[in-house]
């Protein structure tokens, strides 16, 4: 298979994932294949428990899949040694989680510098780059504060700065607006969009929130571990279908209550 004009960044082929829970094998991801184009805004959409987080872990290089391949620029990342994979994570991937984690003893700018530390930057050089990243998210005045002292929205912006500090080719985010109010949520989405648009980077947003679907160039719909890839043209139709499904569910529940 030839990449379409070198446009494909990530190719997921026959990816599957199962976990052994006690005696039982639990299949979290059924064999799935899809591609992620360079410089595109992608949404992986699915309800809770659909296998989203597992897919995100596999894509971000911390979960070795049970089967299939994940290639970035044509290279199977799970063929790397553990140390090469660690370097790949530091260099090529930025992650933002719903709930953010910090190295509690380090201040904001040092936390933002962590991916650079692992890329071999010394502290001065890392601080310089980290300050640029903080400026991009408008958080430069907070550089010397502890991240734990900041509000959820501020923390999320700093997490954004940490995700972009190493100029990764892809930013993977897991419900980045999940614990924010709508104002802060919109701001994070705007940051992601501008990063994709202005710097030509690839965004992968994992969410169960339908509101954001219209932003996507491409949608991967995941349900019960089955992935289905849709291009932008089909997204509005899909959104419509999903909304109708939800409406039907709500109506169904309302009728049940009335009957009772």
């Amino acid at each position, binding site marked *: 298979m030839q990449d379409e004009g070198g446009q494909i960044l990530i190719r997921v082929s026959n990816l599957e994932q199962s976990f052994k829970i006690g005696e039982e094998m639990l299949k979290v991801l059924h064999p799935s294949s899809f591609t992620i184009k360079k410089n595109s805004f992608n949404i992986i959409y699915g309800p809770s428990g659909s296998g989203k987080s597992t897919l995100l872990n596999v894509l971000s290089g911390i979960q070795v899949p049970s089967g299939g391949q994940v290639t970035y620029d044509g290279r199977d990342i799970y063929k790397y040694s553990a*140390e090469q994979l660690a370097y790949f994570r530091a260099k090529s991937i930025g992650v933002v989680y719903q709930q953010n984690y910090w190295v509690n003893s380090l201040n904001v700018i040092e936390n933002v510098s962590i*991916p650079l530390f692992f890329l071999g930057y010394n502290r001065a050089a890392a601080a310089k780059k980290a300050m640029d990243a903080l400026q991009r998210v408008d958080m430069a005045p907070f550089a010397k504060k502890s991240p734990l002292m900041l509000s959820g929205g501020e923390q999320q912006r700093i997490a954004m700065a940490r995700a972009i500090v190493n100029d990764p080719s892809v930013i993977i985010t897991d419900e980045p607006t999940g614990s924010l109010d709508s104002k802060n949520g919109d701001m994070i989405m705007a940051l992601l969009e501008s990063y994709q648009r202005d710097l030509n980077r690839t965004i992968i947003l994992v969410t169960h929130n339908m509101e954001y679907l219209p932003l996507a160039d491409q949608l991967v719909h995941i349900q019960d571990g089955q992935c289905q890839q849709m291009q932008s043209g089909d997204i509005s139709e899909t959104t419509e279908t999903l909304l109708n499904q939800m409406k039907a569910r709500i109506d169904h529940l309302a009728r049940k209550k009335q009957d009772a």
Partner: protein
Amino acid sequence: MRNQEDDTIKKRPKIHLNTLFYMAWRNLTSKKLRSFLTIAGIVVGIGSIAFLISFGLGLQKLVTDNVIGDKSIKTIEITSPNSKIIKLNDTAVNKIRRFPHIEKVGVEYSFPSSVALKGGGIDSVIYGVDQTFQDLTTLNLLEGRLLQKNDNRSALVSLSALRGIGVTDPKKAVGQEIEIVVPLQLADSEADELRDTFKVVGVIDSDQNNEIFVPSAVFDVAGVPTYKQVKVTIDDTSNIPTLRKQIESNGFLTNSPIDTLEQINQLFKFFNIILAGFGGIGIIVAILGMFNTLTISLLERTKEIGLMITLGGRKRDMRRLFMIEAVLLSLIGVFIGMFGSFIASRVINELVNQNAAQRVNERFEIFSLPLWLIAALTAFMLIVGLIVAYFPARRAQKISPIDALRRE
């Protein structure tokens, strides 16, 4: 382009060691109380063991110095078990002089004598010594000078003997003429005693004993046939045993300060082990404290470690981070502990000295903190710190970022 990126993956740069040190340091300083208590444990442990061992070594040194003094342990003292049968005379001395490894030979006569300034005399031991023997004997000169090569009727007198003949101020003794009578029972001699006046040239500090040193030539001339004692020095202590055997096979008795030294060392080896044992209890408690701190720190930081792995940290970096924290705790603890024990030893030494000042006129030192002890304790604590850190560090290395960052 692909190849280029493959190359950087192969020759990937790594996190700087000083960045890891910095991160470890920040973690320790962010938990001030806990780090302080852990370090305090190490300070007490290392401090007490350093204090006790330096006390043991100090006492050993003090005892050795007092017993052996400036006597070289490279000397052998030779006497005869029976001067009538086995004669320690010039023939014997010349024979000994030709043994291998011998460097210097000194001879000494000694007799009971009586000494007087004016009128009434007192009993004293008189030694006739040659220059070499005088050099090999530690004489603590208070006034005047030692015996010299061309001295003839010159004498060194001990403080106690001076008092006996009525001179209380040692300064006034130098230059005085004293009369000495030595009974000699010589078979072929005309006189049965040696009676002469000597000029005092020096006063020595031998508080307890009435002692007088005169040149050995005095007795040579008088025709005394055998020496009381011969002292020889050897090029190296390792040759002492064989040489002693050789001398003893000629019927003489030998004695060496190395015998005493070995006895002292034997005794103190035991004593020092007991002291180190007491200190060791403190160290064990400190080690358990450090183990506890590192383990708790690991459990608290599972998420942090998971995060750092996600952000590109290698598992071995996580292990090193814990190792470095242990090294920092150990080194700071050792440094303060050593310094504390040094200060404590200075204070106690001063107190003991002041307390003893009425009875002893010289200052003494009951602690000894040699460099090797500092180095050994530092190395010991570092190694122990690394061993203690090994288990939490290995757990840190095994943390799975997926489990660590799983949403609750």
